Each structure stands twice: as structure tokens, then as C-alpha cells.
């Protein structure tokens, strides 16, 4: 929620050249009619001027999706989703004139203030307007509903050979790369939501880091859902060639809506020999109100292939938003000595439901994985860690360490842990630990007697509980994430 206005600002600034204070939600949209069928897919493909192979790929995915059943194994409950009652394509036509800040929901402004705006978006704005010789901190690709409207710093990145652009643009300009890697990590038939995404994805980011290049800046994408009744189906593809390095930040926001909106993204990462991809997410999609009304359904498939020797993929996520989160960023460790990491904080409050975790598939020799998951449940929410560690027959000397901790705040919420541990190699070593506890009275008392309000005390203790994960976040996100945790837990004590 809080970053909505910032995102809008940034998008406007980037496209119109800088109205810094404006805020608008009334943007005229170019929208496809509701419903999902082959014609809609043809329309999306035509609007994006896609080559025939991509249309064929989408139609094949759609055919697969039609035959699949929606998964029901996650510990989440929601009314059935009517996939025919959604718009599958929405693009902003032109920007409406700015309105005054007074029109903004004061509740939103309050949260906004708590987060300490301006944060990084303002920095980016500053970056846009600085002369070329000043190196900005973050390059950003903003995805506004279905279309990526602005990509900053492309030129700077191009100098080092890095390609960072909307995937729709990559389809036009680098079709050979897209065709080679699209669906190579998450095949269209992988799961129900991945098949749906493959059929109707509208945009997303494409990143290509050439051999030996260390990406000169953090890459960032802000996704947001603006239009009513739209599903957002972005598709992100990151390829790190031999000995390259990239750190990618993803932020997600959506404005307040009464109805539930669907978000089904697919993220594919490919790392070759000695390459490193660090993928950080701060997800604060609209979680619904305190009565559990509205909010985003966040059904996401994220997977990375460590294809090369000594490659490394690291996922860090802070999940505070969405009415329902269903997401398992995973690593397939194919290359010998490759490394997979998953650091996660998932906070649920009110009626939120999160079922999230990771899969670490060890195939190569001496592959290593680390999983640190911190789940915090408050209100009437349910928070589940679900994870798989699999050691294949060939993965000699593989190593896994997993730590899953849950914290319960209040007696109406639930915290669940569902790890799957499968080992087929005697030389592999796996360790798994999980704990569940509540905030200790003495910790609270200690903070309270030093003058902290109960809410601040809880915020402080929760931040301490999450420290192992938060320290993995890039600087740009760390501060925001800490504040976000406190905001998410508002009203959970007292």
C-alpha cells in the first residue's frame, strides 16, 4: 500500500519529465474485454506485435492450462476464482492531470508517513534529473499493470553490455535470447498458475548480464496493479552468463480495492559458471482491510537454475502484503559446487493467508543450500512455511541447512511448518530445525519499562526476530522493509 503514490510519482516523472508531487488513480486504460479465450491471447500477442512462435507458445500453454485443475494443497482458503471475470490486458493510454494530495485517503497518507517517504523512489527521481556523469544507485523498470512504461538508466547499463528492458521489448530486440530461455526454467506445464501466466503474460522485466560483467548498479522493478478487475501476469527472465553478477530488486504494490485481484507471475533465473544472481523482493500488495475484505491473490512461481559450476542464486523476500500468498522461490542446483539460498520473512495480520517457502533441488556434486525462514502471524491470519529439500543420487557431498522459526502474536492466528526432506545420497548432510514461540513477556516488559509503546516494542522485537533475513537485503530495501514490518503488524497488540 504505502509505496503506491511513490510508484505513481516515479512513473509519471519518468514518462512526463517530472511532476514530482502529483498523484492520480484515474488513468485512462486501454483494456481488453473481460474473459479468457484464444482470441484474448491473440489480441494480447497482436497488441505486443509478437512473432508467431510466441503466439504459438502462448496458445500451447493455454491448451495445457485448460486441462489442469487449480491446486488445492496449500493451506489457504478462498472463494473460487472466476477466470472469465478478469481483464487480461490493460495498458495506460495517457496520463490524467494531477490532483491535489488532499484527495488521497488519509489512512494511506498516514502509513506513507510512517514509512518515512521519500525513500528510494525519490532518490531515483533525483537520479533521473542528475547529469549523466553522476552514477545513480538504482535502475528501475516500472511495470504499470500490463505494460512497462519506463525504463531508466538503460543507456548506462548498455555501456557495460547489460540488457535491462521490458520483456515485450526484449521479444522485439533480442528474440533469440528470449526464445532460448523463456520457459526453460518454468515450463508452461509446470503448474496451474504458471500455465495461465504463460498464456496471458503481458509484461515483465528481461535482464541479460554478459560474460564476466558485474552489473554496475542494482536493478529494480516496481510492479503495481492499478486498474479494477485486472489480473497481473508479469514474466521476468534473468540470465547471468559465466562469471557475471547481478542484484535485482522487486517491489510490489497495489492500490486499495474491495475486490480481490489476481496476480500470477512467473520469474525465471538462469546462472551459468561462477555467476551470481541475487533476487530481493519486498511484497506489500494490498492485503485486504481489517475485516478481510479485498486484497491481492498472489500466486507466483519463482525458480532459478544454477546451471553452471560454482554458480549461485540467492532469494531474499519480505512478504507483508497480499490477502493470499502462494509462492515458493526455488533453486535447481545443477552445476557442481553451486549454491542456493532462501531468506524469507512472511508477516500475516488480520485475515491474511500466506503459504510460502522454497524448494532446493540438489543435483550437482557438493551443492550447498541455506534456508532461513521467519514467519510472523498476528490477528486471525494463517502463515505456513512449506519447503522441499531434495538430494539426488549423484549429489555427493551436498549440504543443506534449514531454519524455520514462527512467531505467534495473539491467540486467533495460526503458524504452520510443512518441510519435505528427501535424501538419496549417504554423503549428503541435511539439517532442519523449526521452532514456534510467542513474544516473551519479559522482552516486552523490558522494552516497555524503557518507555517504548507496546506497538513499538513489538516492532522492535519482530525486527530482531527477522534480523538474519533483513541483513541479506540490499541497503535500498532494508530500511523500508523494517518499517514495513512495523506497519503490517499495526493493531495486532493491545
Amino acid at each position, binding site marked *: 500500500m504505502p509505496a503506491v503514490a511513490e510508484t505513481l510519482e516515479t512513473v509519471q516523472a519518468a514518462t512526463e519529465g517530472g511532476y514530482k508531487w502529483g498523484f492520480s488513480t484515474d488513468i485512462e486504460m486501454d483494456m481488453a474485454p473481460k474473459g479468457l479465450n484464444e482470441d484474448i491471447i491473440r489480441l494480447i500477442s497482436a497488441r505486443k506485435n509478437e512473432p508467431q512462435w510466441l503466439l504459438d507458445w502462448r496458445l500451447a500453454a493455454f491448451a495445457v492450462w485448460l486441462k489442469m485443475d487449480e491446486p488445492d*494443497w496449500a493451506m489457504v482458503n478462498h472463494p473460487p476464482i472466476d477466470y472469465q471475470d478478469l481483464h487480461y490486458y490493460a495498458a495506460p493510454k495517457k496520463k490524467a492531470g494531477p490532483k491535489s494530495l488532499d484527495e488521497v485517503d488519509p489512512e494511506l497518507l498516514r502509513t506513507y508517513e510512517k514509512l518515512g517517504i521519500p525513500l528510494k523512489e525519490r532518490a531515483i527521481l533525483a537520479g533521473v534529473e542528475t547529469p549523466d556523469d553522476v552514477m545513480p544507485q538504482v535502475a528501475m523498470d516500472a511495470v504499470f499493470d500490463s505494460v512497462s512504461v519506463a525504463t531508466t538508466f538503460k543507456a548506462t547499463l548498455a555501456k557495460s553490455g547489460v540488457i535491462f528492458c521490458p520483456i515485450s521489448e526484449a521479444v522485439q530486440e533480442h528474440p533469440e535470447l528470449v526464445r532460448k530461455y523463456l520457459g526453460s526454467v518454468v515450463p508452461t506445464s509446470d503448474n496451474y498458475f504458471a500455465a495461465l501466466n504463460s498464456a496471458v503474460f503481458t509484461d515483465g522485466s528481461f535482464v541479460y548480464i554478459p560474460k564476466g560483467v558485474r552489473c554496475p548498479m542494482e536493478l529494480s522493478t516496481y510492479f503495481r496493479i492499478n486498474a479494477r478487475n485486472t489480473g497481473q501476469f508479469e514474466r521476468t527472465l534473468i540470465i547471468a552468463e559465466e562469471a557475471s553478477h547481478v542484484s535485482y530488486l522487486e517491489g510490489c504494490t497495489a492500490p486499495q480495492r474491495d475486490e480481490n485481484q489476481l496476480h500470477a507471475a512467473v520469474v525465471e533465473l538462469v546462472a551459468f559458471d561462477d555467476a551470481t544472481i541475487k533476487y530481493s523482493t519486498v511484497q506489500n500488495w494490498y492485503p485486504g482491510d481489517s475485516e478481510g475484505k479485498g486484497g491481492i491473490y498472489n500466486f507466483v512461481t519463482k525458480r532459478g537454475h544454477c546451471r553452471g559450476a560454482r554458480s549461485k542464486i540467492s532469494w531474499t523476500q519480505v512478504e507483508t502484503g497480499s490477502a493470499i500468498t502462494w509462492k515458493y522461490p526455488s533453486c535447481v542446483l545443477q552445476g557442481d559446487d553451486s549454491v542456493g539460498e532462501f531468506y524469507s520473512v512472511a508477516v500475516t495480520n488480520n485475515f491474511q493467508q500466506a503459504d510460502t517457502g522454497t524448494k532446493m533441488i540438489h543435483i550437482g556434486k557438493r551443492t550447498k543450500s541455506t534456508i532461513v525462514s521467519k514467519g510472523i502471524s498476528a490477528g486471525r491470519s494463517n502463515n505456513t512455511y512449506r519447503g522441499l529439500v531434495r*538430494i539426488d*543420487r549423484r549429489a555427493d557431498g551436498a549440504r543443506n541447512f534449514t531454519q524455520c522459526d*514462527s512467531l*505467534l*502474536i*495473539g*491467540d*486467533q*492466528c*495460526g*503458524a*504452520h*511448518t*510443512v*518441510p*519435505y*526432506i*528427501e*535424501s*538419496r*545420497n*549417504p*554423503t*549428503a*548432510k*541435511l*539439517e*532442519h*530445525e*523449526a*521452532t*514456534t*514461540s*510467542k513474544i516473551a513477556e519479559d522482552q516486552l516488559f523490558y522494552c516497555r519499562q524503557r518507555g517504548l509503546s507496546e506497538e513499538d516494542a513489538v516492532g522492535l522485537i519482530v525486527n530482531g526476530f527477522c534480523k538474519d533475513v533483513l541483513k541479506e537485503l540490499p541497503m535500498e530495501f532494508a530500511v523500508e522493509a523494517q518499517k514495513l514490518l512495523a506497519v503490517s503488524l499495526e493493531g495486532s497488540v493491545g
Partner: protein
Amino acid sequence: MSAPSGPLAALKAAADAFVADYHARKTSLPGDSHVRAEAAALVATQGLPGPREEAWRYTPLRPFAEAQFAPARRAEPSAALLARIPAIAGTRLVFVDGRFHSELSGVPEGYRVTTGEPAFGHLARPAEEKLVALNTMLAEDGAAIHVPAGTDAGTIILASLATGAAVGFHPRHHIVLEAGATLTLIDLALGDGEYLSNPVLTFEVAAGATVTHLRTQDEGAGAFHLSTVYAEVAEGGTYDSFALTLGGKLARMEVHARLAGPNAAAHLNAAQLLGASQHADFTTIVRHDAPNTASRQTVKNVLTGRSRGVFQGKIEVARIAQKTDGYQMNQALLLSPQAEMDSKPQLQIYADDVKCSHGATVGALDADQLFYLRSRGVPEAEARAILVRAFLSEALDPITHEEARAAMEAAIAAWWERRE
């Protein structure tokens, strides 16, 4: 069973064959025919657990579905089989191919035992556990053990002997401990050859009562052993169990323990020692349904050959069960390159003031420890044996019944010698 085209078809055919067997014999089966008919309707509609079911994801029943089991007949055990019952002081209740054998059994004193028909009890849930529905449909015999309030019933040796006839039997035992009663039940499943043993045991533990359930499963190399245990523990009561799994081609023990009153406790310790192409599954569901309840689990697996060990442990904490203390540890030693361990420890928690944790480790024998012993002149084979014994001791240590523990240690030592 006629040529099946896939695992689902094979399971369907097997379920149909069991149902046909029930219809052929239903008028002669003893006990409550109504309960039985309800279970038969469940088996006919739900069939057997399939590969898509979460609770059975690691234990495919296809090999079981493809085997054939005739109804069990009265049989006599060989002297060798009888000799496998360890010499433990207590009252013997011997079942041969699922039927009570009075000549081999003792007479209880101070408590009641009824045999000759299945002891259905009321704790089992045929509608939820498909193999329990199968058991209820076809159960022919079992022991109903009733220990009056405040009575110490001492030790009962409940021995199931399988003669190796290609039969299926479904014993159904019900054990009731009234308030403050105590009982040690030595539960033995021994046999040779190929057969199906599908027992269900239910334990009703009243306030302040303690039951110690010590089980050794050393079935025949071709046997299918699929057992389900339900224990319901009232205020201040304890269900204390240890299960040693050594035998069988495909074995599963599923335990549902419900802590229904404050200060109730359950200990579900186990060791699975498997070799060749054995498959064994230890699945537990502990439900904390009252405040101040405690559960403890230490489960050890030693796997050699091409064996596959499975552990699924779930701790459920209801909203009312504040101050729950739940602990679960599952460890596996893989001693051969072809062995596999799958574990799924699970926490499902709805109360906030709880202390719950689980841990799981999988690995080989520690090379440093092995080196330490070797460097002190211990031969490799012996050093390995010492380390495996040490690994198992944490799960065995809580067994306070000296004779039972000695018998288990002997069974483990024999397994170590014969392992493939």
C-alpha cells in the same frame, strides 16, 4: 487381481477383491455387523490409499495392491517361530495368523481380556483412514483389554505370529485403562514369508493412567505390515510408546495420539532399521487438544541396501491448548549409496503460548568419529557397529522396562548381523 493398467487401477482392483471377500463371508464374521457394513461401504467407495494422497506420498501401495491374500485360517506356528517370542515375564496373548490361540496364551489376573471377536472400540476413524476401514470390514479377532481403576496390570505380551501362508489378517485390539491404571503392552509382530498384517490398536487412557506400548515389528521378508494406532489420553494420563521396525517388505505404522485433557503426555519414539529393498514408514499425528500437554518424539532411522525409510510427523496444537510443549527429532543414517530417506516433520499451531520445535538430520556415519575409533585399534566393522548403537541409544534410552529393552537390543544386534 486382474491385469491392472496402472497404480490406480491396481488399487481399485485390490479394494474390489477385499470387498468381494467381505460379501462372501459377511454372515460368518463375528462382532458388530453394522459397524462392519458401514466400513465395507467406505472401502467400496473410497478404495485404498492412492499415490496422490498427501499422507501416502512417500509410501506407494502398488506392490501391496498387486499381491493376493486369501482369508486367514486357523494355523499352528512352528517351534522356531514360537521361539522368537522373547522370554519376558508377563501374561501372553498369542494370535496366530490373526486368530487368538488360547493354548499358547496365559490367563490374566486382576483385569479382563476378551477375545474371539474384533474389539472395535470407538476411537478408530474408518471414514478417515482407509486401511482402518479395511480392517473394520474384515477384522475377525482381537483382544479387548480392560484394566480397572487404580490397577497395575503389569506386563502383557501381545504376540502376532504369522506362519507364512499367503493370507491377510486384520486384528483389532482395544485397550482401556481406567483412572490411575497402569499397563505395559509388549506388542510383537513376528512372522515368515509373504502375508498381509493390517492391525488396528486403540488405547483409551483415562485420567492419571499410564500405558507403555513397546512394539517390535520383525515380520517376514515378503510381508506387508500396515498398522494403525489410536491413543486418546485424558487429564494427567500418559501414552508412552517405542516402536522398533526391522522386518517386512512394506511396512507402515501410523499413530494418532490425541491429548484430550490437561497435563496429558505422549511419547512416540521409534527406530527403523532397514536393508535390502525394504520400505518402512513411521507416520505420527499428535493432536494437543488441552492446555499444558506435552509430546516427545525421537525417531531414528538406519538404512542400508536399497531400503527406503519414511518419517512423517505432525504436531497439531488446537487454539485451546495453551502452554503446549511439543518436541520432535527425526534422524537418519544412510549407510549405503542406494538408500533413501524421506521425512516430513510438520507443525500446525493455532495457540500462541506454546513451545514447539522439530529437527531433522540426514547423513552418513561421521568420518571423524570412525577415525577416532579406528585410531584406537577398533576394527572398522566394529567401529561402525558401535557408532550405530550410539546413534540409536537416544531413542532407546527412555525404555525403562529392562527385559523389553534387552530383547530389543538383542533384536537390533541380530539385525545388524543379518543386514543386507
